């Protein structure tokens, strides 16, 4: 094959040359070239090695359906594999390399696999990985040894390890009409809909709008079709209500007329503009969709059909017409329909010699014969190609007389010299999106193709997508679809552009495969990308994989990155033939999204690193400035410890917690969930959602509350403050705030809509600081004005209002630490101001800011529960909170909480553990009764929270252990084989410290 650039023609810009690298070598192309067209113009025809057999492969197509010429793009250290060369626009500095070859494309050691061809037939993995079922190796695990070698030998591009630092972006769009495909039909639809005032989006995979108009050599309204397309596109670009999206592939059609599209914004640029993403992912919500996605030409399956130099007729015509590249000097045509005759003439006009047209049909139309004559080509009717000649490129082929109706061959064999063989097996409309938004595709016997199904969403088809292959039909369809999509009155007689085109009829003879007449001629490939042959399909049939879905999985037909765009219909036809049934009876594939591969970066856009959403407390900056180690708690960042130089985490929290017990500490509690519960029925509502009573709570007081789920298990706990008769402030655990809000909203909206209650998240309205320790009151006394703080004015669970340094504050006396403690709330914007004032006021008392670890240690010492114990599996009784279960009223969960299994004495219940070997305990570790480190069994419970207790001078833990309190005083063992920890513990009350609460209340 001797491909070359034509003397003139094409839509490339011959004044702008572009330098790029392929497999380490520099090449030059023109602006407007794809990597495929540029390499072809440089005479390269071998562009890849096949998946299993490492066979040399060249270009089959000129578009997204390309199965062979897959390359890896290198951007610095970042590798992007398996990109069709046909979809890559060249630019200065582009670096690409070929795949699945060692050491080079020309000399690939892996090609030895071809010798072992029969071994790698369909079902190879299934058979191999079962282990040899017969023979001397039966029962051995031979395949485990072989697997790494097999994996290395097979495959396509190699993924890299470098982080992809380029930018990806997501975009939402809304429109009246989305037109998919900007060929003549799509352009016409967009133009018509836009003229009616509709908001239009026109998406096109290629960089240049126009589709087939760019290489059809037809005229529209007296000018070259490509010029008509360019002019129409330009006019659309200047229309306010139209958005053009070139380089954009609509890849999925979802419910509610929502479509997904990928725009390749900067792949064709050496350096993106400032802030410009490489890919932009579009979610388009369209009132109506026009599908003008065109049709794909099908290959014919015949022996040796994968030799570089064999390509689709339309691809050859496109390379010549759009890119000014002739794929060969002597071109042979193999076809079952008339459309390839037009390609023959186009190639001949660009300077190729047409060595022969091999047509499976016994007779051809006058139009076809005329075109053959114009192309100076001999026509061999009732012939088929039975073998190709050449090594890594085509040198010739054998054509033999053939009766397509019987499949029988005659005796006459002709050898034909050709460096390029172009094939046309008919056309398949691109119905992928329609299939995602429609019923089953409809088989058309005349066109030998599946046509679009009945829509189940709002779309209209146009042009070749509908099986209407002429440009005049496309324009008429596009106009009608644009009208229908935009709605409103129809124009009576649309003035459509006049088209001059060849009256070729693409209706094919039903020939999908030319099986080898004598078993010679080489492999006949159906799926080039996954190396699936016609014999593989027949093997699947013989082995009982008859259903098209089984065929697909067994042979991997259509499962490669091209998703079988060139192979599905031929594969189906071969199976139908083997089964003796028709193609529609054999079945079809319902195409799934994505239509073509989508970059993961675009799907994950802006949801990682610095752009990951997070929540910061009003005092966040103070914590960071003062040496806090920040700890992510859900979306929040909270101080873990305020470590000093040289301190371990344990040393830091022990110091902080000890300071709280000794004098005073301060902790940021702004992250607690806060819900305003307001309205005349707020108290009644709280009585229903909490297990205990809230309607009796006086204004200016807080109460600890527990909520259950409907199934009787504990949901969340927290204090709720009554700020006014109809005004409560509920607090929840930090992590559970969203859940509790949803839970409450559900009951309010669905179960009790009659209650006059409003729920509002006010978590972010308030900054909260808990001041805890024996000196806490002294600290407040030093800075609070406007209220007394004595036991009488502010008893345990009391609330007062006052001021700190000019800022209004609410102070509630409650304690998580077990010390005398006060939570000081102010409006969030003043949070840091109040916090700093409290720190300043606390200096004489050596106030210490403390983090989550110390907070945890203090609450474990007190036996207070958190989400670690309220874990969705525990009941109020399990946690010894049954004193909170009111008997005076029903509440959510009260009907279900007394079920047999929930009141069983055997349940795991809350206890304390003390480490007896003075070693730390591990959260999640099991508790066992037997002193046997090796017996991983007989767990009686698990550890929920651990710490070193500065108050006790011991390692302690909270745990859920079967029969709970009944085990107090008994010995057990902590068993943590994953962390290699086994040791004795004593089971004790979970109230380790100050069980009477005298410190808190005093």
């Amino acid at each position, binding site marked *: 094959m001797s491909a070359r650039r034509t003397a003139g023609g094409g839509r490339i810009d011959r004044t702008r040359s572009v330098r790029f690298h392929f497999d380490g070598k520099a090449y030059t192309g023109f602006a407007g070239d794809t990597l495929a067209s540029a390499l072809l113009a440089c005479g390269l025809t071998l562009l890849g090695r096949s998946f299993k057999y490492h066979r040399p492969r060249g270009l089959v197509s000129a578009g997204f359906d390309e199965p062979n010429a897959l390359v890896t793009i290198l951007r610095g250290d970042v590798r992007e594999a398996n990109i069709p060369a046909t979809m890559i626009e060249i630019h200065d500095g582009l670096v690409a390399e070929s795949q699945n070859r060692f050491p080079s494309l020309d000399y690939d050691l892996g090609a030895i696999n071809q010798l072992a061809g029969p071994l790698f037939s369909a079902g190879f993995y299934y058979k191999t990985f079962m282990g040899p079922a017969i023979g001397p190796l039966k029962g051995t695990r031979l395949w485990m040894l072989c697997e790494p070698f097999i994996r290395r030998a097979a495959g396509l591009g190699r993924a890299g390890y470098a982080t992809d630092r380029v930018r990806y*972006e*997501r*975009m*939402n*769009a*809304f429109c009246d009409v989305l037109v998919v495909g900007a060929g003549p039909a799509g352009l016409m639809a967009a133009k018509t809909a836009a003229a009616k005032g509709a*908001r239009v989006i026109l998406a096109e995979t290629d960089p240049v709008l126009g589709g087939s108009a760019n290489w059809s050599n037809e005229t529209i309204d007296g000018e070259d079709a490509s010029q008509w397309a360019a002019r129409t596109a330009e006019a659309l670009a200047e229309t306010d209500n139209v958005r053009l999206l070139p380089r954009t592939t609509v890849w999925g059609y979802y419910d509610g007329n929502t479509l997904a599209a990928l725009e390749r914004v900067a792949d064709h640029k050496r350096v993106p*503009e*400032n*802030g*410009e*993403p490489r890919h932009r992912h579009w*979610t388009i*919500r369209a009132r109506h969709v026009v599908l003008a996605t065109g049709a794909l030409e099908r290959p014919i399956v015949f022996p040796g059909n994968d030799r570089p130099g064999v390509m689709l007729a339309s691809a050859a015509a496109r390379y010549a017409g759009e890119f000014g590249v002739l794929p060969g000097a002597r071109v042979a045509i193999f076809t079952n329909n008339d459309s390839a005759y037009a390609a023959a003439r186009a190639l001949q006009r660009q300077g190729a010699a047409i060595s022969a047209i091999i047509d499976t049909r016994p007779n051809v139309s006058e139009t076809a014969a005329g075109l053959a004559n114009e192309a100076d080509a001999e026509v061999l009717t009732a012939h088929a190609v039975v073998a190709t000649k050449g090594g890594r490129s085509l040198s010739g082929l054998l054509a033999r007389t053939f009766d397509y109706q019987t499949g029988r061959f005659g005796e006459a064999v002709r050898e034909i010299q050709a460096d390029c063989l172009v094939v046309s097996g008919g056309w398949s409309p691109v119905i992928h999106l329609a299939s995602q938004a429609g019923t089953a595709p409809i088989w058309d016997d005349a066109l030998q193709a599946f046509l679009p199904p009945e829509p189940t969403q709002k779309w209209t088809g146009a042009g070749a997508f509908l099986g209407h292959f002429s440009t005049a039909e496309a324009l008429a369809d596009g106009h009608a679809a644009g009208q229908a999509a935009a709605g409103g009155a129809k124009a009576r007689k649309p003035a459509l552009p006049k088209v001059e085109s060849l009256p070729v009829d693409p209706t094919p003879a039903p020939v999908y495969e030319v099986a080898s007449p004598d078993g010679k001629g080489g492999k006949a490939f159906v799926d080039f990308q996954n190396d699936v042959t016609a014999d593989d399909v027949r093997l699947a049939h013989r082995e009982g994989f008859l259903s098209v879905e089984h065929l697909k999985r067994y042979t991997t037909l259509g499962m490669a990155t091209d998703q079988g765009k060139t192979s599905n219909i031929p594969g189906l036809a071969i199976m139908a033939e083997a089964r003796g049934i028709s193609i529609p009876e054999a079945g079809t594939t319902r195409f799934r999204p994505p239509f073509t591969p989508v970059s993961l970066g675009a799907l994950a856009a*802006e*949801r990682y690193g*610095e*752009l*990951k*959403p*997070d*929540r*910061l*407390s*009003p005092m966040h*900056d103070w914590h960071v400035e003062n040496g806090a180690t920040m700890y992510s708690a859900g*979306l*929040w960042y909270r101080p873990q410890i305020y470590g000093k130089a040289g301190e371990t985490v344990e040393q830091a929290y022990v110091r902080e917690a000890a300071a709280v017990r000794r004098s005073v500490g301060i902790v940021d509690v702004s*992250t607690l969930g806060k819900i*305003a519960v*307001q*309205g*005349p029925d707020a108290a009644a509502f709280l009585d229903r959602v909490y297990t205990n009573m809230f309607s009796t709570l006086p204004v200016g007081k807080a109460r600890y509350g527990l909520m259950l789920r409907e199934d009787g298990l504990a949901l969340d706990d927290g204090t709720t403050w009554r700020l006014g008769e*109809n005004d409560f402030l509920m607090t929840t655990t930090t992590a559970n705030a969203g859940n509790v809000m949803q839970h409450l909203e559900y009951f309010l909206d669905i179960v009790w*809509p*009659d209650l*006059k209650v*409003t729920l*509002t*998240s*006010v*978590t*972010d*309205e*308030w900054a909260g600081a808990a001041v805890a320790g024996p000196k806490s009151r002294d600290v407040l006394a030093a800075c609070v004005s406007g209220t007394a703080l004595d036991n009488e004015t502010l008893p345990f669970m009391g609330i007062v209002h006052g001021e700190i*340094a*000019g*800022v209004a504050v609410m102070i509630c006396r409650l304690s998580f630490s077990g010390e005398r403690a006060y939570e000081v709330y102010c*409006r*969030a*914007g*003043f*949070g*840091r*101001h109040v916090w700093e004032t409290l720190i300043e006021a606390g200096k004489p008392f050596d106030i210490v800011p403390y983090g989550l670890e110390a907070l945890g240690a203090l609450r474990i010492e007190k036996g207070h529960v958190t989400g670690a114990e309220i874990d969705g599996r525990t009941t109020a009784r399990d946690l010894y909170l049954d004193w909170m279960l009111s008997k005076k009223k029903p509440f959510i969960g009260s009907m279900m909480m007394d079920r047999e299994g929930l009141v069983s004495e055997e349940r795991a219940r809350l206890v304390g553990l003390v480490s007896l070997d003075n070693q730390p305990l591990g959260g999640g570790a099991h508790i066992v009764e037997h002193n046997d480190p090796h017996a991983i069994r007989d767990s009686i419970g698990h550890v929920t929270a651990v710490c070193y207790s500065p108050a006790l001078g011991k390692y302690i833990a909270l745990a859920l252990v079967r029969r709970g309190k009944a085990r107090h005083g008994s010995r057990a063992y902590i068993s943590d084989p994953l962390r290699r920890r086994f040791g004795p513990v004593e089971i004790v009350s979970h109230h380790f410290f100050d069980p009477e609460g005298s410190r808190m209340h005093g």
Partner: protein
Amino acid sequence: MVEPLSPLETDWKPGHYGHVANGAGVTLSQTQPGSIVQAAAFAGEEKTLIAALKDATGLALPDGAGAGVINGARAAFGIAPGRFLLVDQAEGLADTLSSAVQADTGTLTDLSHGRTAIRVAGTSAQWVLAKLFAIDFALTAFPVANGCSTAHHDIFAHIQRTGETQFDLYVFRSFARSFWKSLCHASEDVGYQVK
């Protein structure tokens, strides 16, 4: 008097950023209203609440999903069925309203510190916001003064269109800095000015 601290704090840096070769496509700023108040009507009390709000503030809210009104330093818009967000550049709106709304009509919740107000203005405002929200920002679909409730990732936002090319966004204070970073990032390709 103590000035409330913006949650953006150190991340708010006036200047020009991104692709500003052709000028800034958007201007990002904080409107720092003195009051942000939610008014919520109980079922069947929506019209009574709207009337009470009008009496107290002069803001005549149209009755309809997302409908809103702008009147000088004050603005209001619907954020949920029977729920409205009222904004005033001056402080004390919650107090003004508390005497105007009867307990049986609905509730008022002061969110002046809990929500952070960010303004996105300029010819590319729609483009930038479309990256963040699945909302149709076209003028025909989203007229001036109208509002909506939506979310970007996990970040809830109320949005009111306060001009043909101007939108005021109200996000939860704790998310504000994170959201600001996303917003700046999304504005880079059109160029942005922080003011």
